[in-house]
């Protein structure tokens, strides 16, 4: 089963995300973002970058994580192929430590589908049921 699936949304792009853990769902989200921007299968895991951040809730952290990757794409040209994500609670906050693998955006090989303005909090809720995590993320485009 694919870890993410795009669903119809009138004005923007929405994706159902899944994972066997919250960390895996975060990795799925990174791939869904890349697949919104371009054809993900054409993005190779050539370089590795580290991302560390923390937020007050898992939902906030998911939005922050995606916006961090969006920033790295726009400013540093990084397209993400996949990510190894670790999450841990830290007091009343959640901490993320991830290795992000990808390559620089190359217009010749990475045809752009659409630019994303931001990941949104719209109807965002991480749900865990029987060891299975899910959430729907909406990208404002």
């Amino acid at each position, binding site marked *: 089963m694919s870890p993410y699936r795009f669903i119809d949304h009138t004005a923007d792009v929405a994706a159902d995300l899944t994972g066997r853990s919250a960390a895996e769902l975060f990795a799925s989200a990174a791939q869904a973002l890349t697949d919104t921007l371009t054809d993900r299968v054409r993005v190779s895991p050539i370089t590795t970058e580290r991302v560390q951040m923390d937020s007050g809730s898992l939902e906030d952290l998911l939005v922050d994580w995606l916006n961090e990757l969006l920033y790295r794409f726009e400013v540093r040209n990084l397209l993400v192929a996949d990510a190894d994500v670790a999450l841990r609670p830290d007091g009343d906050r959640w901490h993320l430590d991830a290795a992000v693998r990808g390559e620089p955006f190359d217009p010749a090989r990475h*045809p752009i589908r659409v630019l994303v303005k931001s990941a949104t909090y*719209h109807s965002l809720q991480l749900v865990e049921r029987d060891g299975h995590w899910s959430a729907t993320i*909406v990208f404002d485009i």
Partner: protein
Amino acid sequence: MARIEQVDAYRYRLPREEGMLVDGMVYADERMMRDIQKDESLQQVRNVAHLPGIVRASIAMPDIHWGYGFPIGGVAATDADEGVVSPGGVGYDINCGVRLLRSTLTREEIAPRLESIVAAMYRNVPTGVGAHRRDLRLTGGDLRHVLEKGAGWAVSQGLGRAEDLDTVEERGCIAGADPDLVSERAEERGRTQLGTLGSGNHFAEMQYVAEVYDERIAAAFGLFANQITVMIHSGSRGLGHQVCTDHLRVMGDASRRYGITLPDRQLACAPIASPEGRAYLAAMAAAANFAFANRQVMAHWVRESVAGVLGLAPDRTGIATVYDVCHNIAKFETFSVDGRSRRLCVHRKGATRAYPPNHPGTPAAYRDVGQPVLIPGDMGRYSYVMAGTDRALDETFGSACHGAGRVMSRGEAKRAVKGRSLFDEMKQRGVHVMAAGVATVAEEMPEAYKDVSDVVNVVHGAGIATRVAQLRPIGVIKG
């Protein structure tokens, strides 16, 4: 079941319910109202009525659709002293807006060179990811001036003429901008994006005046039948998106701290007088100024493109700015409410200003007829020019609609286009299209949008703007 009361043929009231501080007021006809009820947008109109300090009504235009917290097509004015400001009431693309250029050229005059002109526009106005002109590089100091001065900065650099500013909302510069409150990240995203169109529904479009409905007002706007016009739709690019992202995070905590309870976390807000509210407004104004400069720079390059292909001096194209209007903004404006003059923070989220004749905010050149209201449609059919009215000032805080709104999701549009050559189809309709992304053109195909004339009919019928002219596309560049 929440109540909806029909007021007249074009107005529906959503009466106050628990938590709402004012009524909702929706401008729509009966058929539209049935469509509007298919999604959550009316509930969003009601939710906006919860914002502390909201005045008169939570207003929705006929192009309303479901947004993030606020509906797209929403107008909400809050008291400048006791009210709140909400980044969701502006959106991610701060000062996304439209500029309309007129020319002294006719459709017949440019017809033989149309494809060359569109190609020149496509070369000169960067579209798509990472594209920017190497001859426009901003140093840190330059960017600061852009954020402080807006379109005026571009004109001071020779990217346009001083007269351009006379017909731009707020003369292309919103007061109170503070570059120090724009994050380093937002600046990084913006530094290479000034003078770039972006993607999605943004475009630059060559058009001709297909219909004139009101000769007097059209003449005042400098518009005549068969005339060539150019419409540019773009905003503050990554810089504005990042400003919104940065401040939404802060506002979530601020709402809780100030004890503001809201039905949707995306309405997160802070008192206008609070440090968080003031910081957002100053950063938002800076991003709005970036957007004004962005459209000014692109308008200049369009003028150069047309002149270059026709072998004319740029001024000889007669290309001048009809108007430039924001449709995602929060601004301080003064209105008479219940006989009292009040300074309000007007949030227009997918709505444009529509000031009447003889208003100090209406450009001097249009004092007798009202401010031009620019309403882009889809890339195959038409767009409209309207003029603001006294009724808009009385009812909608001088606001009207901003566009057509989608009917198909992007996925539906792509499926509908499968196996068709949209570029050829557009050509058969007389529209020459150039785009960085083929997928963008599919998603933006005409059938994916509502017929903008339905929206315009309601606004005209309700009297909050007057129909002036219809513009039809002949050339489009997109991201």
